[in-house]
C-alpha cells in the first residue's frame, strides 16, 4: 500500500489542568496508548510533547491515519487540535515510532526521560527538517504560554 501513504501533522494543547501528578498521569496514558495503537495499525511517526502540548506526526495508510486521528479528535484530553497538514507522501519520514520530550524545563525533562525514548529521534537532527522544526517551535511556544 505504498501508493496510499499519507502524512498528518497536528498539535494540540494538553487539556488536563491541575496538579503535576494529574498532568503526568495523563501524558503517560496518552503516550502508552499511542505507542500500542499505532504499532498495531502500521502507523509510524513522532510525538513531541511537554507539559503544555503535544505535536505529532502520523504516517501510514490513509484508513489507519484517519482512524487514528479520529480517535485523537474524540479524546477529551486533547484540546484545540490544530491540523497542520494532511497529504499524500512518497516515503515515510519516520520508519518507526518515536517520542521525545521537547520542553525547556529540566525538572520535566527528568520526569519524562523514561517515556521519551530515543529510538531514531534526535531533536538536533530533526531541527534540520522544516516540518519538525516548526512543530518543535510550536511546542516550545505552547510551553512558554502555559508557564506565563
Amino acid at each position, binding site marked *: 500500500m505504498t501508493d496510499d501513504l*499519507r502524512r*498528518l501533522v497536528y498539535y494540540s494543547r494538553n487539556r488536563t489542568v491541575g496538579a503535576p501528578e494529574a498532568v503526568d498521569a495523563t501524558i503517560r496514558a496518552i503516550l502508552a496508548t499511542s505507542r500500542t495503537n499505532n504499532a498495531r495499525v502500521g502507523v509510524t511517526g513522532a510525538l513531541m510533547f511537554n507539559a503544555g502540548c503535544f505535536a505529532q506526526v502520523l504516517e501510514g495508510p*490513509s484508513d489507519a*491515519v*484517519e482512524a487514528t*486521528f*479520529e480517535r485523537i*479528535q*474524540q479524546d*477529551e484530553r486533547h484540546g484545540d*487540535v490544530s*491540523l497542520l497538514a*494532511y497529504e*499524500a507522501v512518497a516515503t515515510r519520514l519516520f520508519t518507526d515510532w518515536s517520542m521525545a520530550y521537547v520542553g525547556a524545563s529540566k525538572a520535566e525533562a527528568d520526569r519524562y526521560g523514561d517515556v521519551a525514548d530515543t529510538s531514531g529521534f534526535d531533536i538536533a537532527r530533526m531541527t534540520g527538517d522544516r516540518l519538525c522544526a516548526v512543530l518543535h517551535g510550536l511546542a516550545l511556544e505552547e510551553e512558554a504560554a502555559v508557564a506565563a
Partner: protein
Amino acid sequence: MPAPSAVTSLPAGPFEAALAEMATPLLLLDAGGSVTFANDRAAVLFAGSPPVGRALPALLAARGAAEPGAFDDALRAGRPAREGLALNGGRRVEAALAPLSSGGFALTFEDVTEHVRSAALARLEPLTGLCNRAELHERLGAELAAAERAGAPLAVLLLDLDRFKAVNDTLGHPVGDALLRKVAERLRNAARREDVIARLGGDEFALVQVGRAGADQPRAAEALAARLVDLVGRTYVLDGQMLNVGASVGIALYPDDGRGADDLLKHADLALYRAKADGRATYRFFEPAMNVAVQARRSLEIDLRRALALKQFTLAFQPQISLETGAVSGFEALLRWHHPERGPISPATFIPLAEEIGVIVGIGEWALRTACREAASWAQPASIAVNLSPVQFRGGKLVETVMLVLAQTGLDPARLELEITEGALLDDTDGVLTVLNGLRALGVRISMDDFGTGYSSLSYLQKFPFDKIKIDQSFVRGMAGSAECGAIVRAIARLGASLGMRTTAEGVETADQLDAIRAEGCSEVQGYLTGRPMPADQAAALLI
C-alpha cells in the same frame, strides 16, 4: 438407545403425515430432552446436523444458538417454555416447548428473522444507525413518562451542522455521507449509553439526555452542549481530505420548557435557531421570549410576502452632489415599506428578512424598474443609483433583467449605477464577477457601496474596475472626533483617484463634515446636509 434411523419416521397415517409435512418446524423430545423425531421443516432448519438422537442443547449449540441451555430448566421441570433464539447466519427463531400428555415434549419453531430485521430497520436511520425520527418520538415519550415518575429533569438537544451543504455540494454526497457517519460516531462518544441519539434527516440530529433523579440540570445539558460544539467542530480527515464543519445546538429542558415531546422538540428548535442566528458554533437554551420573537417574525414574513402585490413599497430619492460643480449629479433610489397598520418599517428590518426568504429578487426587480422609469422622465440626464442584493446575483438572470428593464424604460444605460456591497462578492466571487462584467457590457456603471465596513478587501478593487467607491457614513460621521476616520476617508479618496474610480462620501450631515470631505478630495457627497431622501416628484423638480 435406538438407532436414529429407527425413529426418524412414524408409522404411516394421516396424522403422522401431517406432523411430518406441516409448515412449522417440529421436534419431538423424550423426557430427557433428546430428539426422537424431526419433521421435514425441522430437518431443513437444522440442515447439516441431523437432529434425531441428539440432546437439545447440543443441537442448538451446533446451530450457533448463543444460549443452547435456554430450555434446560423447563425440560427438567417438565413445564412449557418459550424462548427467542439467535442462530448462526443471522437467523432469529421463536421456539415453544410443550410437555406432552404421552410423555416427552414437542418443540416448535417460528422463524422471526424478517420480522426482527424489519422492526429494527423501521427504528433506525440507515446511514448512521442512529434512531430515526419516529423512534426518537417513541423513546422520548417513554423517557418523559419515566422522568415524570422519578421527578427527574431531562434535556432535549437539537444539533445542526454549519456549512454541511457546502461539503455536500463541493465534494459530493459520498463524502457528505461519510462525514455524517463520523459525526454520528462523535455524538455517540459524547453521550452516555442510556441517552437517545437520533438523526432527523439532512444534517440535523437530536439527543435526549435521559433524566436521572437528582441530575444537575441545566448544568449537565450545558456541559453536554459545550462538548458537542467542541467535538463535532473539530477537524475531520476522511477520504484523504481535511474537512471542517461546525455545530449549533438548541436545548429545551423538561419540565421547565415543556412537558410533552412535541413542545420540547419545538422549543429546542427555537433555541437552535437562535444559536445559528447568534453566529453558529454555539449553543443556546430555550427562552419563552423566543416564542414571541418567532411569532413576530412569522407575522412580518407573511406581510412582507404580499407587500409587493399590495403596492406597499415606494422609492425615495436622495440627491448626490458633485463637489466640483455643486450641482445635483444624480440620485440614489432607496426602498421604503409603509405598512397600513405597522406604519413605516425600517429597511434594516425587512431587507435581511426579504433576502432570507428570497422575495428580495422580485422586490429588487420592481425597485430597478421603478427607478429607471422615473429617471427616464427627468428633465436632465442625472444618474440613478439602485442597490443590488447579493441574493439577486444567485438566480443567474440578473443581466437579462437589467437589459429588459433598460429596454422597457428607454433609460440610457450610462445613467444607471448599480450599487453592490462587498457581501455580494464574498461567496462565489468568480460567478459574481462574471455577472458584473455582463452588466458592464450593457453600459451600466457599478459602484462599491459601504466601503470600509465589511471585509474591505482591496483585492476586490483589483479584480473589478468599479466606477465608484462609496465611503461608509460611519467614517464621515467620525471625522470630527477622530483623526483615524479622517485618515481613512483620505486614504480611500486617494485610492479611488489613483485607480480611476470616483468616490462618494455618504452620511454628510454638517457643514464642517462637508468642508473636510472636500479637503480630502472626494468627488461627490450624499447626506442629510445636501438633501434628504425625497419623493419622486420632488426629485424630478430639482432637475428642472
